[in-house]
């Protein structure tokens, strides 16, 4: 016994190299970084493909050098001015190599394959915003109240039924939701409200809310459940009702998490493609009406990317839209992260 103890003590002084430990650690580190690297690479790719738009001078030069279109484009300086009949005929032969100047990009018309291509992004951005806002205004109240009910009021059996059921909805293929909206929901909503157009921003937003609810619900529910139990106990022990406790103690304490949930929901809605592609009618109309057909940024990429000529302006503009989407969701997620991590932490540690 004494001997063994002595030997153990001696071993303590010699740091042992553990192969399995080392490998496991490095492997985990590697996998963690791989996902990060992927994101960075995608980021670079999307921006690289969109970049030629911002260096259109260079493009024109290369076009001139190519020779075929030299006579039509003639004077390089004039290229930004409205296209003349002379140029139009040439565009027909050379495909839809249009001009992607800032004035064209900020226009209100999206007609990328017309004789005079118009790359106005505004109707698309407005379309995305409309559908996203409708979706979040419909989804957030439902999801948060459902989360409040599940976290605070539901008996155990209801909780065990509700939470997985709503979370399964999150994993629902969006094409199924889109199909449902296209076939069932649109007709139902049109009959109910008497809309002029069967497919419109409202139907799209409504269908989208089905995809957003589970996200907002799950994260809100987690935030509400994470509120320390001793807070709600303190409130109940003071003679507050369950409802008062939920509203005045638990909900405020979970605010940062719920805010983050809404932001992530917005991010999802903004980037979602299939549902809006199927349910919004896809007409790039620049209008503030919510019952008119719209076309969103993501749906535009989804619908047109497969048919676009590789490397031409239209292609680049689609990538620009992608880059904008990327930036938008990236910003939202970053804000959400800061809110969850920092505000929540701060809130429960004083000051």
């Amino acid at each position, binding site marked *: 016994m004494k001997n063994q103890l002595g030997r153990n003590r001696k071993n303590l002084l010699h740091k042992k190299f553990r192969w399995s430990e080392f490998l496991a650690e490095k492997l985990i580190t590697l996998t963690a970084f791989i996902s990060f690297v992927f994101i960075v690479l995608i980021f670079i790719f999307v921006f690289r493909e969109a970049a030629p738009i911002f260096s259109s001078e260079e493009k024109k030069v290369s076009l001139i050098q190519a020779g075929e279109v030299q006579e039509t484009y003639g004077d390089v300086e004039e290229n930004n001015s409205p296209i003349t009949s002379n140029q139009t005929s040439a565009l027909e032969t050379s495909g839809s190599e249009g001009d992607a100047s800032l004035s064209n990009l900020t226009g209100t018309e999206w007609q990328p394959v017309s004789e005079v291509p118009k790359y106005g992004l505004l109707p698309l951005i407005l379309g995305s915003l409309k559908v996203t806002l409708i979706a979040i205004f419909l989804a957030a109240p439902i999801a948060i109240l459902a989360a409040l009910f599940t976290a605070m009021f539901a008996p155990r059996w209801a909780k065990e039924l509700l939470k997985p059921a709503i979370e399964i909805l999150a994993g629902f293929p969006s094409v199924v939701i889109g199909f449902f909206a296209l076939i069932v929901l649109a007709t139902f909503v049109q009959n109910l409200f008497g809309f002029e157009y069967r497919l419109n921003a409202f139907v799209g937003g409504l269908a989208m809310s089905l995809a957003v609810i589970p996200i907002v619900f799950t994260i809100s529910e987690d935030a509400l459940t994470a509120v320390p139990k001793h807070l709600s106990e*303190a409130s109940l*022990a*003071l003679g507050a009702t369950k409802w008062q406790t939920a509203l*005045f103690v638990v909900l405020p304490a979970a605010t940062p998490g719920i805010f983050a949930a809404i932001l992530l929901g917005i991010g999802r809605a903004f980037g979602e493609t299939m549902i809006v592609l199927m349910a919004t009618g896809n007409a790039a109309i620049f209008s503030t009406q919510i019952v008119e057909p719209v076309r969103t940024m993501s749906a535009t990429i989804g619908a047109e990317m497969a048919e676009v000529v590789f490397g031409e302006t239209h292609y680049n503009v689609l990538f620009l839209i992608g880059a904008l989407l990327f930036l938008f969701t990236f910003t939202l997620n970053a804000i959400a992260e800061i809110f969850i991590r920092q505000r929540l932490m701060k*809130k*429960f540690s*004083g*000051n």
Partner: protein
Amino acid sequence: MENKNTKIITKQLNLFYGSKQALKNISLGIFEHKVTALIGPSGCGKSTFLRSLNRMNDLIENTRTEGTVEIDNVNIYQNGIDVVELRKKVGMIFQKSNPFPKSIYENVAYGPRINGVKDKDILEETVERSLKQSALWDEVKDDLKKSGLALSGGQQQRLCIARALAVNPEILLMDEPASALDPIATAKIEELIYELKENYTIVIVTHNMQQAARVSDYTAFFYIGELIEYDLTKTIFTMPKKKQTEDYITGRFG
């Protein structure tokens, strides 16, 4: 012992967590304006007993209570009892101080507010009175807007006491209120308990034998869900009648 009003009387109180019995036939009377200490080793049911006095055990699933708990001669487990009203009358202080993540003022004003008090003057008055009662006023009167969580542990616990006092309870249940505090903060809480018993009936659970001896008038010794002995604190600590009690308070087990 008999010349006092009994505020709380429990009769044949049994409590089950699922199939496990946590309280076995507890019958005891708690006197008005006295401090009653509940002592016993961990898991003996003293906290459970405390929480059954304001029906906080209702919040735990699968609990079943048998027998009666009478407060001012009303059985709080009979049908038609409004638990919300009951808890306004029977306040509770928890082991871990649990101020809301709100300002000091909002913490104390919370109780009156949920009772529908909107008048600012009344609220301010209540906050000041409660903080004075809990001996915290002088330390925080200049920054009531500060977060309750920014206070020290002992101050937080006194804030929780102020918050409980703000709804004008008659009984205060304290579940090891000083177990997480340093000796100085503990002394302050004990002093406070001594002052509060003028106006309130106090039931306190404690692991600290000296604390029970210092602050309480009566002591009940619990062991594995049973009430072993209940008497004047002086008697319990000097001449316990049961061997188990003696063993426990002299530190032979527990």
